[in-house]
């Protein structure tokens, strides 16, 4: 429904702020424009409501070139939310929210009704908040009003310019959740500028990663995390976040260093080692770290004398350090294994996967996704 065709913006002869940009935004889509400062994301957004006019190229909304529409009429059909919130301090909440409807000539009764519908959408009780002034609200409440003010006249599109970046972390988090919920519920089309990758990953249906006036990658959050097109995108997303994708993690990323004994170890000694190191198994290796077997407490009969070599079991299932974690975990899960020794192709023991390591790795993934939703 919004279509950029070869759009460029050059500010008096300097290098272009936006260069030959093509972008199509679907109805009901939440698109995040993200990139470092000066990448052209804000310019791109402001060209949609003509606060900035393109130097060349065309922007169409519902097939209509926006330069053919009167700027004031165009803007009244597009919601606009800014970082500094920009509520009118001399108007009440109700007057702020009903401003565009008023400019559009809605009658007072209809405006009143609309305010009554909108306030509860962002968790504000109309009876309590309708007649308050912006200064009497917290920052989070103010931006809630800013959001519904942009929605008041049921615009085709809502533009949001870093709307949550000035808020405290708790308000930001809850407003992000509310925004996503509202967008899904009301099928709003939103163009959202941010420099916060977590916010973009959480909110965007698609993310346009921008750099030097161009879109470097346009993709869903999932796709962006899995397949960043280049080093710039990967770096912007952050290595940590990329690594927490279970498909990218390998066994080597989460394996621990196992406690090993040599086959000539006495049984009583083996028990003491387990107690001291607080483990419930010992891996038996030869002098070349080649895995020979495993000893667990119930195999040890202290009434008999002997060495671990006498009681150890051979290990039938092992994995390799470069195996994908997901695969290794599946193996442990299907075979009901608590432990999975990690050996190289040459049979050298290099690590151990434990169920604890599995839980740690899973929780990392869940946390990372929790951050990104």
């Amino acid at each position, binding site marked *: 429904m919004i279509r950029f065709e070869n759009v460029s913006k050059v500010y008096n002869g300097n290098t272009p702020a936006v260069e030959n940009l093509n972008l199509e935004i679907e109805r009901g889509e939440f698109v995040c424009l993200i990139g470092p400062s000066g990448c052209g994301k804000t310019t791109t957004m402001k060209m949609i*409501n003509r*606060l900035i006019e393109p130097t060349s190229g065309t922007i169409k909304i519902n097939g209509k070139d926006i330069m053919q529409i009167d700027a*004031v*009429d*165009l*803007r*009244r*059909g*597009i919601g*606009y939310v*800014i*970082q*500094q*919130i*920009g*509520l*009118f*301090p*001399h108007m009440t909440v109700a007057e702020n929210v009903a*401003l*565009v409807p008023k*400019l559009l000539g809605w009658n007072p009764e209809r405006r009143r009704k609309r305010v009554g519908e909108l306030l509860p959408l962002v968790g504000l009780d109309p009876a309590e908040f309708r007649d308050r*002034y*912006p*200064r*009497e609200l917290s920052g989070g409440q103010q931006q809630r009003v*800013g959001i519904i*003010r*942009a929605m008041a006249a049921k615009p085709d599109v809502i*533009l949001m310019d870093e709307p949550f970046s000035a808020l405290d972390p708790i308000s930001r988090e809850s407003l992000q959740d509310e925004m996503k919920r509202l967008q899904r519920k009301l099928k709003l089309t939103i163009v959202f500028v941010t420099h916060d990758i977590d916010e973009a990953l959480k909110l965007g249906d698609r993310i346009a990663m921008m750099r030097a006036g161009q879109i470097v990658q346009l993709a869903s959050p999932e796709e962006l995390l899995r397949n960043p097109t280049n080093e710039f995108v990967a770096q912007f997303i952050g290595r940590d976040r990329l690594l927490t994708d279970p498909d990218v993690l390998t066994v080597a990323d989460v394996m621990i260093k196992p406690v090993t004994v040599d086959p000539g170890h006495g049984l009583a000694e083996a028990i003491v080692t387990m107690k001291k190191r607080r483990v419930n198994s010992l891996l038996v290796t030869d002098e070349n770290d080649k895995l020979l077997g495993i000893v667990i407490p119930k195999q040890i009969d202290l009434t008999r004398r002997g060495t671990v070599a006498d009681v150890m079991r051979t290990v039938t299932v092992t994995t390799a350090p470069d195996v994908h974690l997901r695969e290794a975990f599946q193996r442990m899960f299907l075979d009901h294994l608590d432990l999975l020794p990690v050996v190289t192709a040459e049979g050298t023991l290099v690590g151990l996967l434990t169920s604890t390591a599995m839980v740690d790795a899973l929780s990392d993934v869940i946390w990372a996704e929790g951050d990104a939703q």
Partner: protein
Amino acid sequence: MIRQVLAVFLDPRMQRTLLLQAAEHISLSLSAVVLAVLVAVPLGVWLTRREQLAEPVMATFGLLQTIPSVALLAFMIPLLGIGREPALAALFLYALMPILRSTYTGIKQVDDAILEAGRGMGMTSRQLLFLVEMPIALRVILSGIRVSTVLIIGWATLAAFVGGGGLGNTIMSGFAMVSPGQILAGGIPVTLLALLADYLLGRLERVVTPRSLRA
């Protein structure tokens, strides 16, 4: 001295004269301020749209302020003769500056974010001015008008020098008769008028300011 002043105030003939002069004084001051508002407010708004002109224009008006009042009044005589007109013209010129300055600053200090929000929502420049900038700047503009009014009520005393009437006449005849009582009898009402105007305009400022804009 107090007795002398009381003597003047209690003289029925003087009472009538003083009332008449006070009425002239108020009418003269009020006319000057109203005319100044009509010119300075639109000019101040216009200057916020032509920023490169703002400083030169305001410096010019500032210069006007520095001309000694008696000199300015005297200067008006060849242009406008004597009587009410030259006095009004001089007072009008004096009243301009505080109103112009306060209008300009009042509008300039409106947060850019608010203007951007307004423009982005589809307000025309006219709507932005009358629905956003003027209401927010109103308090500052009114305080400029208040300063001008108090100033002008004081200076209107000098109107008597060019035959412009007002309480200055009583003060002048006090000078002529070397009568401190008479001088004070003219001066005290001027002071009271200025205080009254200050109070009333202060009240007005508060009334027109929504509670959210009050400091």
